[in-house]
């Protein structure tokens, strides 16, 4: 019974695949909870620093930081793309990279050159294949985002902005809406737009800067941008785990269906073989 054996090995292999996807689903589910907590833990800092920056833009400081000054020229832009390190997480990276490519094409049509910083292995591989102008990258971040790993790659972009090599800085990451839904999002980091500074009031006051405005504002601005990027990375990690969980769940369900169908076919052929054998015996007995 050659067909029967073939189907049996097929069932076995699908079962093994299902074991793996099931295990990955459960791992992703437990990691997802932690990643979401981490994402929430990053929020207070980002909110507070955004408030402080908003206060500062309402105030009238004697020193205007280059990050808040809008630029007229728009010849070269910086782009930070946040992706995951590992695959098997559905269309998460594909969606983010599709948005990236669309945006890059648009800039290309306008004659704007793009410098790219990548977070995550998936994006790095993609950008290398695309032959993009890669200036820095952060990969192998693991399950917990660390500010320490992001400072260097981000600093490269901020330096480029300060020196006027790029005229704007954008960020692309996956926004976490809920476990089932993630959305790629493009955000302008630099120069700081008016939306970033919420609730504008024409109040004429200023902070006391200790020791001098420049140093304090510089430190604050760099931290603000880093906080935005850190938050994006934390959010992307939460997206990754939930997307992986959903993808693995559908893979497990699919494997279950395939096993069911294969078992049906297997039993049918077995039944057919038995019936055939029986009828042969009966026919043989009748002939005698």
């Amino acid at each position, binding site marked *: 019974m050659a067909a029967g054996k073939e189907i049996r090995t097929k069932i076995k292999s699908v079962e093994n695949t299902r074991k793996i996807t099931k295990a990955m689903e459960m791992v992703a589910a437990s990691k997802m909870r932690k990643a979401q907590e981490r994402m929430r833990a990053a929020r207070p800092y980002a909110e507070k620093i955004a408030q402080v920056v908003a206060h500062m833009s309402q105030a009238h400081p004697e020193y205007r930081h280059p990050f808040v000054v809008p630029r007229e020229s728009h010849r070269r832009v910086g782009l930070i793309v946040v992706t995951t390190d590992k695959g098997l997480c559905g269309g998460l990276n594909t969606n983010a990279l599709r948005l990236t490519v669309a945006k890059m094409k648009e800039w290309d049509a306008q004659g704007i050159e793009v410098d790219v910083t990548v977070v995550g292995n998936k994006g790095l591989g993609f950008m290398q294949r695309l032959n993009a102008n890669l200036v820095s990258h952060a990969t192998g971040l693991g399950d917990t985002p660390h500010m320490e790993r992001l400072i260097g790659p981000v*600093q490269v972009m901020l330096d480029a902005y300060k020196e006027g090599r790029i005229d704007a800085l954008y960020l692309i990451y996956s926004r976490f809406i809920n476990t089932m839904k993630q959305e790629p999002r493009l955000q302008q980091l630099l120069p700081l737009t008016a939306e970033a500074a919420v609730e504008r009031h024409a109040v004429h006051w200023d902070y006391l800067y200790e020791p001098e405005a420049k140093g304090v504002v510089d430190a604050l601005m760099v931290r603000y941008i880093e906080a935005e990027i850190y938050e994006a990375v934390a959010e992307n990690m939460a997206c990754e785990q939930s997307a992986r969980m959903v993808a693995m769940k559908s893979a497990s369900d699919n494997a279950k269906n395939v096993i069911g169908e294969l078992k049906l076919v297997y039993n049918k052929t077995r039944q057919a073989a038995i019936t055939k054998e029986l009828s042969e015996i009966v026919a043989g007995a009748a002939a005698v």
Partner: protein
Amino acid sequence: MAMTLHVDIVSAETSIYSGSAEYVIVPAEMGEVGIYPRHAPMLTRIKPGSVRIKKPFEAEEDLIYVSSGILEVQPHVVTILSDTAIRGADLDEARAMEAKRHAEEAIRNRTSAMEYAEAEAELAMAVAQLRAIEKLRRHRA
């Protein structure tokens, strides 16, 4: 009741403290500063050290260690943005240089990765050919 101010201490990775206080003492860059309610708005960098918080109706001050960061003072709200990483202009510069070097390496490795992929494809083809030859031989024999 005495006037109080609201104190928030947050770092990028977690929220450390949030609550009301009669006064706070913060290790600012220029020296320790004590902040009472209705302080003038102020923005300054802080040094690593301990923040002392006097909560209302408690005799003892609370001690919280913070690394460097930024202190923002509003008349009734004090926000301390604590860093999680050790900072410094030189250190940040070194990190940026390192990141740049990594990127250049990645670009240089691009060719080698491509070569590797090509070699792998060639190897797979060779193996397939060998297998085909073996099958043919067995067929003949």
